């Protein structure tokens, strides 16, 4: 086996096995900190040994065994951890034996613990990327433009709270499951959006590492919860959004809006997979949640070979459905964009203007107004709206696009 093959095997094992190793050790030792350290040590040992000894036939088994040994060594070394071991045993004892079925995949317990509502939202994101995604603390710190030490402390504090307050390591009871799943999906959507609309002046406009990680985790959650419509909906939404990524930022670094994108540059395989999921959800006959409706809207867009072929009445109908699920001003704003295509910019502008109080600090509100005013030939007002949008926008590609649109007005 060539060194390149070994490296590839280690990378693949890290992708496939990290969460499983952490999850299985957390269950055994009842402590995320012990599990995380031992898993990291096991992967470091693999990097050391596999090039000489060869890749073991069952890399996951090898990693779990090695990590288990490391954890036991550590607990023996630190005699004061005796208390922790006892606590871990107690923790296991009141845990009923897992029933068979995909929901009892240990990784799912890990995800629910990392996304527990008693942790702050940004902590849930960081902990999920570390424990489930296997990203390192420096990688997570870079992704969220936070100092490495600050990110390390955030994760350490979270682990301490989980231990001290006894945040349980299990899949929530059926009654709590929908709310808790929606919390997990919200964390994954946060990761995806930070990748898709990265903020910060020195940042790439699209962070493909984050969108890819979010999709990988969404695939995992979808596999673990195959009956959950919203898990499928969120994955479809991410796939159909990610599919357009190659066409979304021009070589000049400027954002390309949907109606001007080169649709032949879209990723056909991702579009097909997203459409398949949307069709599957439609066929289920179960009333869709927010992510499923958003995915369906994206499916309508990605079904049109040309922007002019977009079925806008279908888009507006789906937004009507979304408004009933989520009557927020942001949804109303997006609906107005579709209404402009169906009923004209004047009708849309009237709706948008009514949202001014709620969305005055939201750059997309001003950008939408600017485009509508421009189409109505109200150039001075459009220019002022572009200025307001620019003052609030944080994404470099978006800023470049808005600047050009404003300057075109002369």
């Amino acid at each position, binding site marked *: 086996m060539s060194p390149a093959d070994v490296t590839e095997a280690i990378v693949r094992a890290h992708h496939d096995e990290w969460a499983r190793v952490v999850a299985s050790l957390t269950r055994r030792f009842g402590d995320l900190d012990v599990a995380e350290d031992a898993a990291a040590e096991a992967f470091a040992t693999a990097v050391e040994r596999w090039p000489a000894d060869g890749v073991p036939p069952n890399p996951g088994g090898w990693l779990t065994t090695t990590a288990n040994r490391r954890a036991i060594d550590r607990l023996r070394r630190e005699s004061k951890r005796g208390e922790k071991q006892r606590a871990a045993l107690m923790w296991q004892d*009141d845990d009923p034996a897992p029933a068979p079925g995909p929901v009892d995949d240990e990784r799912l317990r890990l995800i629910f613990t990392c996304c*527990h*509502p*008693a942790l702050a939202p940004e902590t849930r994101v960081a902990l999920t990327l570390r424990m489930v995604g296997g990203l390192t603390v420096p990688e997570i710190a870079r992704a969220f433009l936070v100092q490495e030490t600050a990110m390390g402390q955030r994760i350490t504090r979270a682990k301490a709270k989980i231990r*001290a*307050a*006894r*945040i*349980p390591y299990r899949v*929530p009871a059926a009654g*709590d499951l929908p709310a808790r799943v929606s919390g997990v999906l919200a964390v994954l959507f946060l990761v995806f959006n930070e990748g898709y609309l990265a903020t910060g002046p020195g940042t790439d406009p699209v962070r493909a590492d984050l969108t890819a990680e979010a999709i990988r985790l969404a695939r995992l959650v979808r596999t673990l919860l195959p009956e959950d419509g919203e898990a499928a909906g969120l994955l479809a939404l991410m796939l159909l959004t990610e599919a357009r990524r190659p066409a979304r930022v021009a070589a000049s670094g400027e954002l390309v809006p949907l109606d001007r994108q080169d649709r032949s540059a879209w990723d056909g395989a991702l579009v097909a997979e997203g459409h398949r999921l949307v069709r599957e959800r439609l066929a289920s006959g179960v009333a869709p949640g927010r992510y499923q409706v958003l995915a369906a809207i994206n499916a309508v867009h990605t079904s049109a070979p040309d922007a002019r072929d977009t079925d806008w009445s279908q888009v507006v109908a789906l937004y009507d459905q979304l408004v009933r699920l989520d009557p927020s001003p942001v949804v109303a704003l997006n609906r107005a964009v579709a209404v402009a295509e169906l009923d004209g910019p004047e009708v849309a502008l009237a709706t948008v203007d009514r949202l001014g109080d709620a969305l005055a600090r939201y750059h997309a509100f001003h950008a939408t107004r600017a485009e509508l005013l421009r189409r109505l030939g109200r150039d001075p007002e459009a220019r002022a709206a572009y200025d307001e949008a620019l003052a609030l926008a944080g994404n470099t590609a978006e800023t470049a696009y808005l600047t050009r649109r404003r300057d075109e007005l002369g």
Partner: protein
Amino acid sequence: MQYLVSVIDDRTASGTDEEMAAIDVFNDRLRAGGHWVFAGGLASPGTATVVDSRGDGAPVVTDGPFVETKEHVAGLWVWEAADLDEALALAVDGSKACHRKLEVRPFL
């Protein structure tokens, strides 16, 4: 596992009869479920006295709470619960019963 559950209030002596009745019902449930350890209401923060005898000299006795805040602890429970999920589920009902915010904090 034991949790200290603090009742957060921004007024003093604000409990109503309805609230007291609801808390009694909730307390019976705590006892029946094996969660009850302790409960007590507190007099207003203005009745507190702070004592500091860490120094070498005479102990310093100060009138009033150690920190003035808009919100204060008006009462407390100690609950026995298997884990935070169980404690938080109880707190959802407890908060409704006493019509106050609750802080749930684990003992070491």
